[in-house]
């Protein structure tokens, strides 16, 4: 029948096209497996000691490629702004049933521990795995826990805006101070001796910037999750 022939030619041609696409990709990638050449990261590892920070990934994120982090903060800020613009509503969240007593108590018990853990990950980001982004997301997950277990919990809008604004302004201002003092935007103008490596106060501006990033990410993710949850009854 004609219908069967049309279906089989279109699926056959689709099959052939996709198979050739997959084979091209795999061919190029498998023939050019990267070897161990010296990359920029290895040179950064050698320079890392002069910044006095134990976690090389933190130095790369905050200092050597600090402008990318500034751009990423800008993207998150604009996205949070856009979500607030789109999902603007004054409705309170109308969960169908109130959570039971055990969930409420347990979440109230867990919330400060999660926040504390998030702050720990944020502040010790330059000494152990972690940092601003990771800590901020942990804080936001604690806020999410409270948002879905308590119907009437709301993150206060003015506090979040204040934290966000303060964090954003201070990041750019630290960069501009570096421009004035050291003639390099985001230069490291606080003392960063190599002998301090492993202590909490080491690395100059690096832990400060990462804490600022953590505050910004935590507040913005909390705002985004609250906006999405408040509209969860519409969909």
């Amino acid at each position, binding site marked *: 029948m004609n219908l069967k022939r049309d279906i089989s030619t279109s699926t056959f041609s689709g099959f052939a096209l996709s198979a050739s696409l997959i084979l091209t990709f*795999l061919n190029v990638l498998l023939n050019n497996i*990267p070897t161990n050449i010296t990359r920029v990261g290895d040179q950064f590892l050698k320079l890392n000691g002069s910044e006095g920070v134990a976690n090389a*990934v933190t130095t790369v994120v905050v200092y050597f490629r600090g402008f990318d982090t500034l751009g990423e903060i800008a993207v998150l800020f604009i996205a949070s702004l856009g979500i607030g613009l789109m999902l603007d509503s004054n409705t309170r969240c109308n969960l169908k049933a109130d959570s039971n007593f055990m969930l409420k108590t347990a979440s109230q018990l867990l919330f400060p521990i999660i926040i504390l853990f998030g702050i720990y990950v944020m502040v010790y980001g330059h000494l152990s795995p972690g940092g601003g982004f990771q800590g901020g997301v942990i804080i936001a997950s604690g806020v999410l826990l409270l948002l879905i277990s308590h119907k009437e919990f709301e993150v206060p809008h003015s506090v979040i805006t204040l934290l966000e604004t303060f964090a954003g302004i201070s990041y750019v201002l630290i960069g501009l101070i570096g421009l004035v003092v050291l003639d390099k935007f985001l230069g490291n103008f606080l003392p960063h001796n190599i002998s301090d490596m492993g202590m909490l106060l080491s690395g100059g501006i690096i832990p400060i910037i990462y804490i600022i990033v953590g505050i910004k990410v935590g507040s913005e993710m909390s705002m985004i999750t609250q906006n999405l949850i408040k509209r969860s009854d*519409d969909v």
Partner: protein
Amino acid sequence: MFEFFNQPEIIKIVVIIGSMTLFFVGLFGLLTQKHLIKIFMSVAIMESGLFLLFIGLIYKQNALAPILTDNQQGFINMNDPVPQAMILTAIVIGMAVLALGVSFAIEYHKLTGKTDIDEITSLRN
């Protein structure tokens, strides 16, 4: 048999095949799915495939994480920190754009009730 799979070249081939599978699953979803949220999920799957490819291929055998602990003297024989920083940035940016897209879809659904991408044709193409 497991020693055969532990050689660096074989590991890299397995990483390439696995992450490209994820990439093409996402690409297939992007081209064939009709629901808006499923299309956004396919984009997220494609991005995960790419990040997996990058991290898998940059890994050096028997090298340590780039964090200085008490037993080491210096930053020698460590993995590359730059791809980790790049992927951190790319994950956050990708997630922010996708969250924005989902909020557009939610508001569009509230206003018109449609989520099928074939039905979103009020603007003539």
